[in-house]
């Protein structure tokens, strides 16, 4: 098989951060090639370099032996590289036909030949085995059809390389199957397809080869048939699976059940999940990127409400329809993206700490200033927050210290269940250890914690129960002695 695309030694920097450290990627004609990696691996950056959204700082890209330098999506398309993004990047306010031919409409003088536009659109869709009213607005069709429209757009511009960036994340099983059929058909026609997905089952269902990236570097490329799942997972998270890596979790304290989640689900997003959280213990949520960890947290906290199932606190059912209701039920949520959903950078450390408490009291009953200052002083000392003072804007603090302020905010509420989504992401090693120690203290004080982390070792160290998620479903619940890196990875990799 001939080589279609060869990206050699691609380097991409954003300021002082190097997102791609000389990545090499080869795509053959007539293959489906999965691109895998956890958060920050550099998958999306590589795709954006290939499609001309980002310009590489180093390295070369050749398509069918010809060097290209795509500085814009238009140039990449001209070179034969087309992309279908996860969030279908088309125009719902225009017709299906226009979406397929936008920018390349057949013209007569200055005027578009609308009849010809429709004819070519129908022809492109026919190659995918799809027949729809191409004159109807794209927005009136389900996502699956919109995705086919995006692929048809690529076909019409005679793309040789098709990049599918998480195309199945909003499709149901049947729609995914149809997409795979189309992918196989296009592969048969000699197209090279780059397939990004978080669903291992899907990767193995259609891929010929698999390339894994980690931390902006190439880990390797393998034939899919010759790469066991467990090995793939270990390549992705960068941990060797050895017999000795099972240093059991925190021993169950045998705490009373504080919360019980029964069949909780948000249809089409995550679940159903069933597990219980013991008082004074940490329950972990583990799984690969896209396995539904954050979605679970958001569902529990009522941000994206559940569509089915129940949550019981101390044996009684509680309604968790909104964040307010969740807070009233004793939940607190420290979000993954602290910059966007957590801190308010221009407010002071003190103001950020008392925020949730103030919110729960309502606007009219202000937390007295003296109490605010006492709280801020207490947490700054207790959590060892390094700030010049309680009145320093929080935006000037380091990531780890911001994170501690967020923890303080929720600890001030004295919740019964604290949901920590990636509490250690992007902070230095010392701060990580401090956060983990803090979790231990909170547990001892009787608080339950739902601990979410992409770092499996952290989950193993801190949790006495681990809910393993796979493909947005609950794969297993591991208790105490059963918790180890190996068992979690095996559960994640199981088919």
């Amino acid at each position: 098989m001939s080589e279609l695309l060869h990206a050699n030694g691609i380097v991409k920097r954003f300021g002082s951060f190097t997102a791609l450290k000389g990545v090499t990627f080869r795509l053959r004609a007539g293959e489906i090639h999965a691109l895998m990696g956890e958060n920050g691996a550099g998958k999306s950056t590589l795709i954006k370099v290939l499609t001309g959204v980002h310009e590489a700082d180093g390295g070369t890209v050749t398509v069918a032996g010809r060097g290209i330098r795509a500085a814009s999506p238009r140039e990449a398309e001209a070179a034969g590289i087309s992309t279908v993004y996860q969030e279908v990047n088309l125009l719902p306010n225009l017709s299906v036909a226009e979406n397929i031919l936008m920018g390349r409409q057949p013209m007569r003088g200055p005027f578009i030949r609308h009849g010809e536009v429709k004819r070519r659109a129908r022809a492109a869709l026919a190659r995918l085995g799809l027949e729809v009213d191409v004159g109807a607005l794209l927005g009136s069709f389900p996502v699956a059809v919109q995705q086919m429209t995006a692929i048809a757009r690529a076909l019409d511009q005679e793309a040789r390389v098709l990049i599918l960036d998480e195309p199945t994340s909003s499709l149901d099983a049947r729609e995914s199957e149809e997409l795979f059929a189309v992918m196989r058909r296009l592969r048969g026609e000699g197209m090279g397809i780059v397939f990004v997905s978080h669903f291992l089952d899907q990767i193995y269902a259609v891929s010929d080869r698999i390339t894994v990236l980690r931390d902006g570097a190439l880990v390797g490329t393998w034939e899919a048939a010759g790469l066991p799942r467990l090995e793939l997972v270990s390549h992705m998270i960068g941990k060797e699976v050895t017999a000795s890596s099972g240093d059991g979790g925190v021993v169950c304290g045998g705490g009373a059940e504080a919360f019980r989640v029964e069949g909780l689900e948000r249809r089409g997003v995550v679940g159903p999940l069933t597990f219980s959280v013991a008082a004074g213990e940490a329950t972990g949520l583990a799984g690969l990127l896209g396995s539904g960890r954050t979605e679970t947290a958001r569902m529990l906290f009522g941000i994206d409400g559940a569509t089915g199932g129940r949550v019981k606190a101390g044996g009684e059912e509680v309604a968790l329809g909104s964040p307010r209701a969740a807070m009233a039920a004793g939940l607190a949520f420290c979000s993954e993206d602290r910059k966007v959903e957590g801190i308010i950078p221009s407010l002071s450390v003190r103001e950020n700490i008392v925020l949730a408490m103030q919110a729960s009291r309502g606007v009219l009953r202000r937390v007295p200033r003296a109490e605010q200052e006492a709280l801020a002083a207490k947490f700054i000392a207790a959590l060892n927050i390094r700030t010049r003072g309680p009145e320093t804007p929080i935006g000037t603090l380091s990531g780890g210290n911001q994170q501690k302020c967020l923890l303080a905010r929720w600890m001030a509420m004295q919740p019964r269940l604290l949901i920590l989504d990636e509490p250690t992401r992007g902070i230095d090693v010392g701060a990580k250890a401090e956060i983990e120690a803090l979790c231990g203290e909170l547990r001892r004080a009787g608080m339950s914690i739902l601990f979410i982390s992409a770092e499996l070792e952290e989950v193993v160290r801190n949790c006495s129960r681990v809910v393993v998620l796979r493909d947005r479903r609950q794969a297993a619940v591991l208790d105490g002695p059963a918790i180890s890196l190996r068992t979690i990875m095996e559960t994640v990799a199981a088919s």
Partner: protein
Amino acid sequence: MATGLVLVALFVAAGAGYENFLSARVVLNLFKDRAFLGVVAVGMTFVILSGGIDLSVGAVMAFTTVFLAKVIGGLGWSAPVAMLAAVGIGVGFGLFQGWVIHYFRIPAFLVTLAGMFLARGMAFVVSPRSVEIRSAFYDDLGERGLPLGEGLLLTVGPLIYLVVVAAGMVVAHGTRFGRNVYALGGNEASAALMGLPVGATRVAVYGVCGGCAALGGVISTLALSSGDPTRGTGLELDAIAAAVIGGTVLTGGRGWVFGTFLGVLILGTIKTILDFDGSLDPAWLRIASGGLLLGFILLQKLIARQRVS
């Protein structure tokens, strides 16, 4: 659709309520009276379709009228040359606004607000008060037009209006530029990822709108034979209202030039009804326009909701 029904309903109601309302002369006067607003509203429709807004149109129109009065009366330019120059200035002004909006990523609202003050101020610099335009060309044009029989004449102003509407419809629907405007208003990020010329389209849209505003000014001088720096105050809002009543969605990407045409006629009809009925307070013109606008916005919202569900 709804817009057309409202227009018909207005006419039927007015025809029933007032004698002689349903006559060709009334309709013709309506066109003559609203031609300048109509042309400006077509330009505004393109801007709104692209997801933007242009608040400077009224001021640009006012500037055009005093500019014409000054260069024709004061400097002795030939009228056709002056008109071309005026439209050219309008286009240039619009292009500049578009460039600032796009390349500095400043909200169109702010840039064109500044443009509005700028153009209005320039109008006052050219002439602080109303100036009459004396020109053989103007007198001659006033006589000409498309005879419709029975001594009725479709004069040049409304004629330009109809041509602009027709051209606007063709451009919006049948050219790449027009479709790119819809794409830009639909989703800018997607449009860029599809390789469409986002920047050029946005800049050009404001050029079109500026040109239309200046052309509106030219028509206004044809009708009134004078330039006035205070003319067209609040015109930008009337133009936006006409576009929205005509079914163009303020967030961009959806709408029709023909709808705007109907919107202008609706606003004009309400005004004509008030003119016919001497006993009504002119304030009702504003109140009726406001009520209609609110009704149409709610209607758009309901339609959008239905589509989602």
